[in-house]
């Protein structure tokens, strides 16, 4: 047994570390199309102190450490590109506090989205968090670390904007608290009015530290949710439709989606409009406002509301199970998407690009855009499904996604949860001053370069 393995067992116990071929094989990959890379060890800590000791060991021995939630970014962000330790955080899954009146929760770094949703539903039914449509096993810390989105992103911004404090194990093994918890027992602010240090970790994809605790804003959970579905075949009208809808300032979430299958959806753009209320009157009022706002498009015969009754259950489900189902359309167990953040007026160009790429690479697409911060921007998902038993199809999907990212950068967009190649493309395009600042931060926080190496490698 190696000295490293012995040391890891001393920290987490025998059941908390593995270098067995089964775990090495499994944790070397994610469900996306990137090539697997083997870790040397997989370690599952249960406490901040254990994480700290693991990182101290890794720092001393110059071993890479890759923090992992459920590994569902699909862009290989937990693939250990340079080997080392994959840190499966999911055993740190305690909900430490819910401050009902201040509307925030404090969670351990491996707490899953599903568990928080269920916990709130059972104990605080008047509260909710911004639940992504990713599977429920995905973790909250990973979601904010990659600037994830959720059901309330249209109203309140990226889920990382909803962080209210953090506990971080730094790449040198020190522990620090970020925001109001650095001064007292309350987790209500990640920065203001202090210098906002959360930016040293959010969006860095685990390359500057490990989130062991996170505070998260909660929001009122209205008694009723409802949905309307507006459909148009004129893609050029989508930005105007979205502008008018976001002007209402009363919608929970807005998604625009289009896909070629089933055939009834081909050629149409579907705007799913979610709204909430505490009374039937409130719901009726909001529905009327939505209808009135889009009436001009109906009058011009450019679109109309589609009956949603038969798929209402699916649309209102949180998270939407049907999204994962896209992976099995080519009977193959996989899909991956590029999800650039972009301004809304570029929707038609992106939509055309999706169809062009699908045709060029002979792959199946589905696309969905989510409004962020009331129309400030959107996440435009360019999704391609693949058959995991068809390596050629997987290669075609990878090429299509690479081209989608290049297109997004050309259009002035920002790649979301970019894979290591997309990060390189992004940094090549980045303004030199910004890149230099990233270099300074990374060099100072992670002098040994052990944190998720291969990602955001600004120093190479």
């Amino acid at each position, binding site marked *: 047994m190696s000295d490293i393995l012995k040391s890891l067992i001393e920290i987490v116990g025998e*059941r*908390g570390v*593995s270098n*067995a*071929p*089964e*775990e090495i*094989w*499994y*944790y070397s990959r994610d*469900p996306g199309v990137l090539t697997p890379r083997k870790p040397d060890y*997989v370690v*599952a800590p249960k406490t901040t102190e254990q994480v700290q000791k693991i990182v101290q060991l890794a720092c001393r021995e110059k071993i890479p450490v890759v923090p992992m939630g*459920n*590994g*569902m970014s699909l862009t290989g962000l937990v693939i250990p590109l340079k080997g080392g330790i994959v840190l*499966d955080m*999911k*055993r740190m899954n305690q909900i430490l506090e819910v401050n009902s009146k201040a509307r925030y929760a404090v969670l351990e770094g491996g707490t*899953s*989205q*599903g*568990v928080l*949703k*269920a*916990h709130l*539903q*059972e104990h605080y039914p008047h509260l909710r968090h911004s639940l992504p449509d990713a*599977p*429920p*096993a*995905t973790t909250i810390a990973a979601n904010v670390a990659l600037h994830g989105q959720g059901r309330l992103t249209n109203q309140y911004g990226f889920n990382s904007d909803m962080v209210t404090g953090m506990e971080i194990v730094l790449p040198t093994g020190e522990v620090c608290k970020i925001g109001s918890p650095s001064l007292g027992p309350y987790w209500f602010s990640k920065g203001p009015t202090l210098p906002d240090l959360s930016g040293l970790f959010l969006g860095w994809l685990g390359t500057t530290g490990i989130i062991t605790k996170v505070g998260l804003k909660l929001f009122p959970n209205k008694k009723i949710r409802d949905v309307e579905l507006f459909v148009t075949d004129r893609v050029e009208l989508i930005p105007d439709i979205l502008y008018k809808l976001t002007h209402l300032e009363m919608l929970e979430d807005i998604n625009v989606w289009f896909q070629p299958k089933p055939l009834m959806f081909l050629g149409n753009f579907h705007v799913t409009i979610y709204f909430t209320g505490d009374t039937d009157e409130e719901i009726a009022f909001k529905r009327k406002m939505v209808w009135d706002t889009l009436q001009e498009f109906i009058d011009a015969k450019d679109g109309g509301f589609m009956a949603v009754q038969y798929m209402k259950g699916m649309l209102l489900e949180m998270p939407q*199970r*049907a999204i*994962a*189902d896209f*992976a*099995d359309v080519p*009977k*193959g*167990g*996989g*899909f991956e998407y590029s999800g650039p953040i972009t301004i809304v007026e570029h929707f038609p160009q992106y939509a055309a690009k999706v169809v062009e790429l699908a045709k060029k690479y002979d792959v199946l697409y589905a696309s969905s855009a989510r409004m962020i911060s009331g129309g400030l921007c959107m996440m435009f998902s360019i999704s391609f499904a693949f*058959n*995991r*038993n068809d390596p050629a199809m997987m290669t075609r999907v990878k090429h299509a996604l690479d081209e989608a990212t290049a297109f997004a950068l050309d259009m002035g967009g920002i790649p979301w949860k970019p894979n290591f190649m997309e990060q390189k493309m992004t940094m090549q395009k980045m303004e030199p001053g910004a890149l230099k600042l990233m270099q300074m931060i990374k060099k100072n926080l992670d002098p040994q370069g052990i944190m998720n190496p291969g990602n955001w490698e600004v120093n190479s």
Partner: protein
Amino acid sequence: MTQLRNIEHAEIVHRCFRCGYCKFPEDYIDFNCPSYKAFGWDTYSPGGRMWLIRAWLNDEIKTSERFAEILYSCVACDNCKNQCVFPKFKDFLPEIFQEAKAELVGEGKIPPGVRDYFKAIATNGNPYKLPQSERGKWAEGTGLQKYAGQDYLFYVGCVGSYDEVGQKMARSVGRVLLGAGLSLGISGSEEICDGNEVRILGEMGLFAKLAGDNIEKFKAQGVKKIVTLDPHALNVFKKDYPGLGGNFQVFHFTEILARLIKEKKISLGPYAAKITYHDPCYLGRHNQIYGPPRDILKAIDGVELVEMHRNALNAFCCGGGGGNFFTDILGTGEDSAGRVRVLEALETGARIIAVACPSCAKMLSDAVKMENLEDKLEVLGIAEIIERAAKK
């Protein structure tokens, strides 16, 4: 790529997305896969198993003790099948795991506990390595007679026949059924293991022998209707025996008891108790029998039936399924299924956990002891609760 191994459903193994819905109940309150809960590695989850089986079929990983442990730590509770989001292949998940285990049996590379289980069944006819002649001893003093053309054969199974906790449950069921005037008999020392666990553990040859012997015997005796103590036996009789020529009307004892109560053939007095009911996987998820046990408890004046958070389709397994009752691959750590489940029962404020399966009775009784809850929780079979009510 050359396939070194093959299983019947090999062509769909790659379709798992490893999204992880399978780990949870419907509302996501906690992990609902007992092996993932106990071990904590993704490899021990249903999705992990699917991906590893694919790697193993493609010879990207070899057969190993750990791979065998990963497969055999599955308790066959069927939660994954119900929660998987892929309707076109979700129903095949348990079969894929079973087929992979059968392939391991063929390779002769199975965990020692599984090997010993098969050997005991093959040589002694039961996993306890006790004489066949003692199989019917549990019934002494109950008044139950050997089956000789009565309306029902009361099939008890290995746990009910040999395990102390199981025997207690079998005796009470037998007494209550007899007391209600049901015409039934037992096989006693001639009863043969039903083979449900043998099949799920992948020893298909031994299973075929056990099932064949049982079917032949039942037919020779003229058995038409069977009432089982054990939901595991109910499952295999209903689902696997017909394909082998064994077509019988099969009931779980709670179905019969609920009917007898409805027909007022069992008189119930008051019994004041707060009770929570634990759904056995082979009665609930596998066979969708959720109502009768609850109907029985609700029929008792004074019983307050409170549900655990995870119940019915979302119930958390006791950890005894898939042969783990005998092989104990899941172990008894703090995250083992039985211990987690009794703590969930405690949260309801109930004083009694009602059970309808002898394996659950044993697993949860042991867990109550491990958690030092003997003064707070009692594990009782449904018929034992009826007897308490009847005595008042």
